[in-house]
């Protein structure tokens, strides 16, 4: 490993904030040395409890994160927060505004807040977020909060990086539950009906209950529903008590964790294989040639893929065995 990288990691483990921030940048950018950095960090991970916060846009996730963090901080927990916002698919840029809603905790310099952009699908938010979680874990944070972007595929990904997922709903959006129904209802360990000071909170609670009645839980405990309001502070203390209780009782190795590990190895493998294949193909011009073939309708994309893969002995061997 490069000397600067290993020095940076040592400093990070000693509690140096700048080194921590720099390590995150190195890994998020996949700059040279990132993999060695993660290899060096992995041994120090596994002790932090990771809470995911997801829900539709405007549900109050950032404000809620602020309130939760403030209470956990007051109880003496060291905290890391990852706040994810979308990148523009057009410019590649992003406006990361979660700090705006986290004013109270921005005053506390010992709470580490990092804004992350999704950087498009190929950026692999899930893996990057997972890596950042590990870095914060190795830096000695007790609890890590991840706040996701609004509705979308990424919301489901949060489950793969968190030990415990909160799904935030709000009253007044008749379609609120409809919008988050597919997929996201199944990942919740806890439902939060936020903005409970507005009318209609009880109806949403009833809706969620109605939906949970229809689900088969397969031995997984039915997720509780809590009402909160960041305006009146209703329910916030109780919510945080719940989270702390969960963090204390958490078991290290569960079936869920096993699935997370499987999924992570497969996705890292997939990326490596993809990069390998892309590098090999771009080197010899065959890829460009294939594009021309398909463009002029002399070949179809399906057989083109098979043909391109045919240049790899491993793939050829597999195909031969299939026959």
């Amino acid at each position, binding site marked *: 490993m490069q000397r600067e990288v290993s020095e940076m990691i040592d400093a990070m483990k000693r509690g140096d904030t700048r080194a921590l921030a720099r390590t995150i940048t190195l890994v998020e950018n996949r700059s040279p040395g990132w993999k060695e950095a993660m290899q060096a960090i992995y041994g120090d991970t596994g002790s932090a409890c990771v809470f995911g916060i997801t829900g539709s846009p405007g549900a109050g996730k950032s404000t809620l994160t602020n309130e939760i963090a403030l209470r956990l901080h007051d109880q003496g927990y060291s905290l890391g927060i990852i706040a994810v916002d979308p990148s523009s698919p057009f410019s590649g840029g992003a406006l990361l505004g979660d*700090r705006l809603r986290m004013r109270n905790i921005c005053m506390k310099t010992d709470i580490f807040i990092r804004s992350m952009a999704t950087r498009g699908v190929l950026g692999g938010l899930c893996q990057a977020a997972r890596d950042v979680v590990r870095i914060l874990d190795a830096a000695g944070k007790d609890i890590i909060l991840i706040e996701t972007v609004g509705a979308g595929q990424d919301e489901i990904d949060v489950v793969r990086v968190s030990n415990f997922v909160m799904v935030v709903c709000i009253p007044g959006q008749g379609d609120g539950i409809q919008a988050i129904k597919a997929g996201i209802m199944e990942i919740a360990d806890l439902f939060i009906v936020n903005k409970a000071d507005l009318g209609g909170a009880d109806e949403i609670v009833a809706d969620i209950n109605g939906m949970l009645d229809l689900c088969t839980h397969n031995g997984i405990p039915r997720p509780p529903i809590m009402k909160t309001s960041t305006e009146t502070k209703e329910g916030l203390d109780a919510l945080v008590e719940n989270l702390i209780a969960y963090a204390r009782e958490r078991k290290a190795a569960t079936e869920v964790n096993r699935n997370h590990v499987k999924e992570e190895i497969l996705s890292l493998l997939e990326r490596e294989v993809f990069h390998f294949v892309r590098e090999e193909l771009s080197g010899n011009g065959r890829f460009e040639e294939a594009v021309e073939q398909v463009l002029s309708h002399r070949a179809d994309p399906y057989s083109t893929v098979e043909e391109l893969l045919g240049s790899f002995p491993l793939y050829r061997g597999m195909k031969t065995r299939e026959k």
Partner: protein
Amino acid sequence: MNENRKIRVLISKPGLDGHERGAMVVAYGLRDEGFEVIYTGLRQTPEQIVNAAIQEDVDVLGLSILSGAHLGLTRKVIDGLGAQQADDILVLLGGIIPEEDIPALKEMGVDEIFTAGTPIKDISDFIRSHLPRSPEQEPVIEKP
């Protein structure tokens, strides 16, 4: 060359100054130029700004000040960055800044001052041509 490298910019408003429009225009404009822009909002203390710049590991810090307190506030931010060995961060200043204060601000360590009416392109060009600051920072490439 690392194509994943993204330029990160923190836009912040120090002190008691409620004029947010300029900072927002710059934040949105730089996002459209392909930067990752972190916006902290109004009424930040110099300590909060330095803290956010360090945690977010930004390449650029943009301060917007229209209150007249630019000399004092900017000095505190720059001293704070220096105390954390973060003086490699590019510091830009915008807002209502009198011509005669510009030499003092540059002397202090502000890399450039962009007053009202500056096209966004001037700011993004300045950022691209002044990064990376140190040899260990990686090369920066244009947006896709």
